[in-house]
């Protein structure tokens, strides 16, 4: 078979069968590694320096990718392990690194994660940190949190989970005090600072006291005030220390918070609740009702009016979404929330694909789909990549692809629009600033999808059908 024949062949059903039998090779993976998630989590705490113990390239990638996605400066350091460290272990690198980082960047906390090399050697972070404090290179009371996050296990979402658990474990130790009325909110690996701000706004309207763990909404969406702040915003360390005394912990993602929620339930001895991201009307309703249940605070009229406005937006736009066929890929929590929203609007998810999903995700997804006639045709794929998705798009076409920027080539091949949701988004500006959750976020989602379809009509219609009214 020559190149031209291969080109045709890869669009066929026969090829799809072969493609799905592929085992040893991943092609165009829609996932990143654990330490990226850990670094993303760490910057959500006040004055915290993300510190990666491993070889030096890893942290350069994380900084690049986070900086490109948010269009913000992103600071993180690495111990830059070399061949010597492979032979003798990485303790000296770590101790020297801690000393330098503490002296040069003056953080309030250092959050260590690891990349592959340190894990294969078997470096023990706990004993290294103790040693560093014994040697006096950092003060004994200086908070150093850590998590083991090799990239050959899990993905960026489990890395987030491990780091958050590591930080809470370290910060809440021996801080038990009287229980207060606060609710801990865990956004999860949520690439939208706009979402965190929206959650805070809704909770303020309800008069709920809260602590966001980890609040990276300011450092990843920092205002232009004429001066670069290396440590902007973040969850106050004092609030993190007190997290165990809150009334409850609510995670807005499930699969990026599995370890942390379990830890909160056991160690904080309070209710630990996992929700899916409140995307769409019903999911937002559920979030607010859970908040009401946990705090006893009523849902205020302002939010009721907002809900009405979002429902109005859905009504006005429903004809553009109803019956449209979608392919959705990304991280499991976002994918679940998007599909839930699409079903609510009468959209038909057809291909649902994630590289990082688990059996539990698959089951919950299928149960959601079975509850709606719009979900009849949907197939759920876990642990698959964008080359699999390409086969699906070419053999069973849909009207729109929803996912991150890596989807742009297959969307182009399939001749359909890509609605960018997720991480990374390198080829559009400012999307992360606006929420896609809550009632306001639902309006943004509906607007984005409906107008993308209308844009398609304008772009592809002939003169006779090019109209003012749509």
């Amino acid at each position: 078979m020559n190149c031209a024949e291969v080109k045709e062949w890869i669009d066929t059903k026969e090829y799809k069968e072969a493609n799905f039998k592929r085992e040893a090779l991943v092609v165009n993976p829609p996932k990143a590694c654990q330490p990226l998630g850990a670094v993303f989590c760490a910057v959500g705490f006040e004055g915290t320096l993300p510190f990666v113990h491993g070889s030096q390239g890893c942290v350069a990638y994380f900084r690049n990718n986070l900086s490109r996605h948010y269009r913000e400066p992103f600071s993180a350091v690495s111990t830059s392990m070399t061949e010597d460290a492979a032979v003798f272990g990485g303790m000296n690198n770590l101790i020297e690194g801690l000393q330098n980082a503490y002296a040069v960047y003056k953080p309030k906390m250092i959050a260590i994660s690891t990349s592959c090399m340190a894990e294969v050697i078997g470096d023990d972070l706990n004993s290294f940190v103790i040693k560093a404090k014994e040697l006096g290179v950092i003060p004994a009371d200086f908070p150093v949190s850590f998590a083991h996050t090799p990239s050959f296990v899990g993905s960026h979402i489990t890395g987030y989970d491990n780091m958050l658990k590591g930080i809470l474990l370290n910060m809440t130790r021996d801080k038990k005090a009287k229980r207060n009325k606060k609710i801990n909110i865990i956004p999860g690996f949520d690439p939208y600072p706009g979402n965190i701000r929206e959650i805070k706004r809704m909770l303020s309207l309800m008069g709920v006291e809260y602590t966001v763990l980890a609040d990276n909404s300011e450092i990843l969406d920092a205002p232009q005030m004429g001066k670069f702040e290396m440590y902007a915003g973040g969850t106050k360390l004092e609030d993190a220390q007190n997290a165990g005394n809150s009334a409850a912990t609510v995670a807005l993602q499930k699969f990026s918070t599995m370890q942390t929620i379990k830890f909160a339930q056991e160690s904080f001895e309070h209710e630990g609740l996992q929700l899916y991201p409140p995307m769409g009307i019903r999911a937002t309703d559920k979030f607010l009702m859970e908040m009401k249940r946990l705090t006893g605070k009523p849902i205020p009229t302002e939010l009721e009016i907002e809900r009405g406005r979002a429902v109005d937006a859905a009504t006005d736009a429903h004809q553009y979404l109803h019956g449209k066929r979608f392919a959705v890929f990304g991280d499991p929590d976002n994918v679940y929330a998007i599909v839930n929203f699409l079903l609510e609007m009468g959209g038909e998810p057809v291909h649902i694909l994630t590289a990082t999903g688990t059996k539990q995700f698959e089951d919950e997804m299928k149960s959601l789909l079975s509850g709606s006639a719009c979900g009849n045709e949907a197939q759920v794929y876990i642990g698959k990549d964008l080359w699999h998705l390409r086969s699906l798009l070419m053999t069973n076409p849909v009207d729109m692809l929803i996912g991150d920027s890596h989807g742009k080539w297959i969307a182009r091949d399939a001749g359909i629009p890509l609605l960018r949701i997720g991480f990374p988004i390198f080829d559009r500006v400012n999307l992360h600033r606006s929420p896609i959750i809550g009632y306001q976020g639902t309006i943004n989602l509906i607007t984005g999808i409906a107008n993308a379809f209308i844009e398609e009509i304008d772009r592809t219609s002939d003169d006779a059908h090019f109209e003012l009214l749509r």
Partner: protein
Amino acid sequence: MKLPNTAEILDQPACEHNLSVDKACEKPKGGESCAFDGAYIVLNPITDAAHLIHGPIACCGNSYEGRGSLSSGSRLYRYGFTTDMTEMNIIYGSEAKLMQAVEYIAGRYKPAAIFVYSTCIPSLTGEDVETVCRQARAKIGIPVIPVIAPGFLGHKNMGNRLAGDVLLNHVIGTGESSESGVRSSEFTINLIGEYNIAGELWNVLPLFEKIGIRVLSKITGDSTFQEITYAHHAKLNLLICGRALVNVARGMETRYGIPFREVSFYGIRNIRKAIVEVARFLQDRDIMERADEVVSEEEMIACYALRDYFPYLRGKKAVVYTGGVKSWSMLSALNDLGMEVTACGVKKSSLSDIAKIKDLIGEERILKDVTPKILLDTIYKTKADILIAGGRNQYLAYKEKIPFIDINQERHTPYAGYRGLVNLAKDIAKTIYSPVWGLAKKELIWERP
């Protein structure tokens, strides 16, 4: 599996400084990515090859599709192929998995060759990637080339050179002259260390074509695997980024007797110098005449296009922080536009790059160490109007209200060649004179008297 000897990689007798200062090129200091990234950057622009990253998800998942090297043909080079090693693969070994992956790629994508990158983990656990590649090649009948470049071997530049060695040892010289169709009377050159970022090559290749010089192999921007295999048939090598691939130029000189010249295509004076040097080398009257004609005509066109920008750029001050060839050639290009360079960071420059920079702006304007703080302080101290650097400093500059253009791999506008210089002028003017800077006044508008 034996790891490459990094000291040998840095020992480049071709560098002038090695004759006097010490034996080896200086090791780069901090702030850069790793040897794997450096190797991948150099080889990835070979467009019809498959680039398979053997390792856990990190190395591929965080990097694929991320480079700005453009292709006029195949887009296979963009695909992120990885074995996505898991814990089980580490415990039980993954040589069989690698073999399967290579076979799968060969069967489904029909690449001209497969480069297999061994990253930190398989290199630490001692997987025999070289043997797998050898066996795979025998099985599938196309070159399967091991690139042993684990990140822990060193910085990006180390990886560039490792990839250079791979080209010398596995690719260059393996092609037949019948495939290249080179006639002995033909004037042929190679370009080494040019990666077609934003399509820059496409501003340069037409110049040679007009003069009657054939660019035989591009190493490696917008190249095919085959054209690199017969690179040894060229008469002269033009080394564009010396810091990255001096070992390739040097190796081809020793092995095939092909001399090299270090040149740049940024800025009017540099282009003229490069073209004249090539023409002189080829010692052909027609070529020399045509070169002079083409350069003079293109200069006129460029100056005409630039005339609108000169009044805006004249006397503007820039701080420049980039690496390799751009660190010196960009200074000359900015001078062509009437601008002044008040400081230049050299953390990512070779010693010979630094020598050239010294000649252009003087020693006192050289920044040896570059941190965000030093960059900002220098910009304020020298009252610079713009920072010209790589993407990682872009948002730092913006936060401080400093106009910025990106001249590293994330740029989307070609700055090489005559048209490139016009683009550069336009982009600099666009950012310096953007009205957005006026929105971020120090005191808020409602606090003014």
